């Protein structure tokens, strides 16, 4: 965060002295790193999985109800479980978890965390309703109109819950994070991709052949599409990565992420295999997605290599 130490401060009128033999604190870190680490990487993954699954199921069900209603009714309860685990991690990551509700005493549009908290809180209500009504429908108590209403109401806060996370991670002063202009775009895009993958897994498991066929095509399209924000994000982070890692390390991680998160899922999906192949594709996608989040969250905690 030191910036270019030879650049004079904007208010400096007289010429500043050149770097003397003793540079004082110039080579010491200025920024304090928050205690956001492994929990936050899991949070970023689960947030995307929960919101993405809901959005994919909702889009499918609203676009082609005949094909997707059965799988969507299973997807909403799964999304709720994922969201509850995610919320648990978020609460546990606080310095004082018993004060979690203090987040709801104000709404600050300028604070991504505040926007996210409100979106997640509001989203949890229609998601719970959609999940509960889906379970009730399986038990023979069907309130179809109420379930569809809950799905429609949940779309906007669900999208907001996916969209805030990347902005929260890029709107701060941390090295690397502060330069990640495409983090939000990647995470939101990735959430829909992961949701599509999860829905593909569920539909394959349930033997919903029509839904599986459509989702397989959508999954391939989204996998290719996701490479754009991912590439732009890596371009944002390249200067930071170059400072922290050797070329060899960067290439190794980059190739691994590309292979695990894109190429293998793409290849497996194109194989058009059965249940195991579809599950393999989804698991590789989730693994790649987790590694990307982990590598990103790790940046401020990483020291440059000793030369």
């Amino acid at each position, binding site marked *: 965060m*030191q*910036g270019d130490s*030879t650049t004079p*401060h*904007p*208010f400096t*009128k*007289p*010429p*500043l002295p050149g770097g003397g*033999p*003793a*540079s*004082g*604190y*110039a080579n*010491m*870190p*200025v*920024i*304090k790193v*928050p205690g*956001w680490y492994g929990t936050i990487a899991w949070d970023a993954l689960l947030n995307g999985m929960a919101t993405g699954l809901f959005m*994919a199921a909702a*889009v*499918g069900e609203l*676009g*082609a109800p*005949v094909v997707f209603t059965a799988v969507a009714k299973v997807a909403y309860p799964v999304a709720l479980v994922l969201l509850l685990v995610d919320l648990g991690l978020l609460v546990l990551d606080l*310095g*004082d978890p018993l*004060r*979690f509700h*203090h987040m709801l*005493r*104000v709404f*600050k549009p*300028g*604070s*991504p*965390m505040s926007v996210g908290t409100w979106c997640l809180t509001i989203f949890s209500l229609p998601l719970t309703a959609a999940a509960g009504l889906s379970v009730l429908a399986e038990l023979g108590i069907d309130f179809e109109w109420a379930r569809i209403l809950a799905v429609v109401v949940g779309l906007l806060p669900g999208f907001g819950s996916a*969209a805030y996370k990347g*902005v929260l991670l890029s*709107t701060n*002063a*941390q090295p690397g994070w502060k330069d990640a*202009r*495409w*983090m*939000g*775009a990647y995470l*939101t*895009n990735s*959430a*829909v991709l992961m949701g599509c993958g999860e829905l593909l897994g569920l539909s394959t498991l349930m033997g919903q052949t029509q839904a599986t066929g*459509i989702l397989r095509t*959508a999954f391939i*399209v*989204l996998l290719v*599409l996701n490479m754009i924000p991912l590439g732009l994000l890596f371009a944002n982070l390249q200067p930071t990565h170059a400072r922290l890692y050797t070329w060899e390390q960067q290439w190794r991680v980059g190739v691994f992420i590309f292979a695990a998160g894109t190429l293998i899922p793409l290849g497996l999906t194109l194989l058009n295999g059965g249940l195991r192949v579809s599950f393999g594709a989804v698991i590789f996608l989730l693994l790649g997605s987790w590694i990307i989040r982990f590598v990103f969250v790790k940046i401020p905690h990483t020291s440059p290599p000793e030369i």
Partner: protein
Amino acid sequence: MASREKELSALTQASDPPRGRLSELVGRLIYPFLRGEPPKPRTPTGFYTDTTVCIGCKACEVACKQWNQLPSDGFEWSGNSYDNTAELSATSWRHVKFIEQFSDGLSGTRVSLDVAPNEPDLNRWLMMSDVCKHCLAAPCHQACPTGAIIHNEFQNVYIQADICNGCSCCVASCPFGVITRSSMGGHSHKCTLCYDRQRDGLEPACAKACPTQSIHFGPIDELREQARKRVEELHRRGVPQAYLYGDAASQTYSELHSFYLLVDRPSVYGLPDTPVNPWLHMMGDYARSIVGGLVAIGALLAVVFLLRP
């Protein structure tokens, strides 16, 4: 005295009646939502720290610790000159920095007190008492999702300790590395600019204790005027490097209500040369985030519509 304290503590407190678990839980849930009458704005105050007269006595650190009843951080030799405080933290709200600028070949040379304009200033000590910058547009204030961080009536950045829940957004967003989450209690803490003393018409403990008047406290406009005169005086007296850091806004950061007179690059003092407010990018980041999501949803929807039976 001790027996009187025991006597008093044994009495039933009229303002804090004994409560059952349920009422305590309800009270705890409701408490953060209760709002008092906000105080009327007063003249904005701040610090102006003239590093050229700092002697590194650490009286400010001690006074701050004492007045604010901050616990000890223990003691460890840092190996960095006389700086064993190491950093600003949840329990150290003042940090005196020491910079030894000595050329190896000239280490035995005596330095003249009459500094000539063209003389190299290699053999010198730089000392600076660092503190929260009380930024006018403070990233920590913008980041705080609980509303615990406020600008109080003196336009100082203040953390309401009973509201903070330790989310660390403020820690992540401060470009000066000031705020820290305490391991005791898990809440964030930093300099309050002695809010309690100011309300009683007193100056902050550090400024009161400073024996060389390196730390100036007062109305921010007066401080700026005073600081600019001091810079002009130093220029006249052969210190052309003297300048003010943070007295006015830049393109990327607001003015600081705790600003400094420095004689070397900001980074030498452990300050960012060009501080950037992270919120400058927020709207663009939101736009990209939304577009990224909408494109994916649009693609999914298109495939569903095209392939549905």
